[in-house]
């Protein structure tokens, strides 16, 4: 198994977007609260095994009220037959790095870090992830871990506005 991860963030690549929509359709994954076409615009990275899409990630930049900054919220979908290996973890790290590089190159967007909600039971054993560096900072109403990693280049304003 040789996994290849291809960057898609803000590339508007019609081929990658079409592959993502086909992947969601094939695995009956319906993006919540949006259409596949709209979600495809948030595509961050696509993981292939021998030319076949086996996982993908999206990024939605939004204000994280608890931290008073905008974060890149990462979502992942992994094909069922690949959920027992480390594709999901590798994709998360690749996506986090994509978001960090983008944030550094686009300081005007003020993206302070990467965030993820861990929806897979049993994932997230360490308070601060060994490789992902995502630290547990809270739980959702559905008992899912909320994790963040602040980007190294970000400085917190002395009086962060309260939202």
């Amino acid at each position, binding site marked *: 198994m040789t996994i290849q991860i291809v960057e898609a963030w803000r590339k508007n690549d019609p081929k990658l977007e079409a592959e993502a929509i086909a992947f969601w359709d094939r695995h009956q994954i319906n993006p919540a609260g949006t259409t596949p076409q709209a979600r495809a615009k948030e595509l961050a990275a696509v993981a292939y095994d021998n030319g076949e899409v086996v996982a993908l990630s999206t990024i939605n930049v939004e204000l994280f009220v608890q*931290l008073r900054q905008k974060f890149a919220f990462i979502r992942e979908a992994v094909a069922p037959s690949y959920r027992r290996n480390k594709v999901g973890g590798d994709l998360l790290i690749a996506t986090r790095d994509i978001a960090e590089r983008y944030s550094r190159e686009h300081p005007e967007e003020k993206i302070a870090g990467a965030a993820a909600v861990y929806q897979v039971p049993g994932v997230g054993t360490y308070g601060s992830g060994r490789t992902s560096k995502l630290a547990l900072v809270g739980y959702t109403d559905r008992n899912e871990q909320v994790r963040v990693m602040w980007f190294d280049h970000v400085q917190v304003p002395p009086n962060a506005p309260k939202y």
Partner: protein
Amino acid sequence: MTTTYVEAWRKSDPKLEADAIRAWSMTGALPKSDAPEIRAKQLALVAYVNGELAGLSTLNVRLYEPLRQKFAFMRGFVMPDYRMHEVGRDMMFETLQMIERWAFENQDEKIAGMMAVVQIPGVGREPTGKKIKATLIGYVNGNQQLRLTWFDHFRVPPNMSDF
């Protein structure tokens, strides 16, 4: 300037406690609602410079509901003459080292990490400290940063039920 850190955590050392009470009393550092004799029981480290008390830290272990674990909440106090030096930052680092080691050796107490509230305006521009690795996880009392360092040895239970 050579600073010596003396470990006081759970030692009930009368001399260290008396030194701490004297320092609080001389500076009026404790609020009236806080009895010095009780706070002295939370003493973690005392910092001396050339035999003179330069600062001290206390720890209060309690449940932090948003993260569903017990944490050691650290408070630091630096004598006025030493506030322009790095006694405060170094003391936080030394306190973290000490309590992480203690929590590892006393895992039945299930202390997941150390927390601190940054009360000095302008301190804490880096959202994850370079030396102490304390991550900004929220705000309290208006605009004071809440910082957390998860302990390396601690494992987050897989299914945390709601409190």
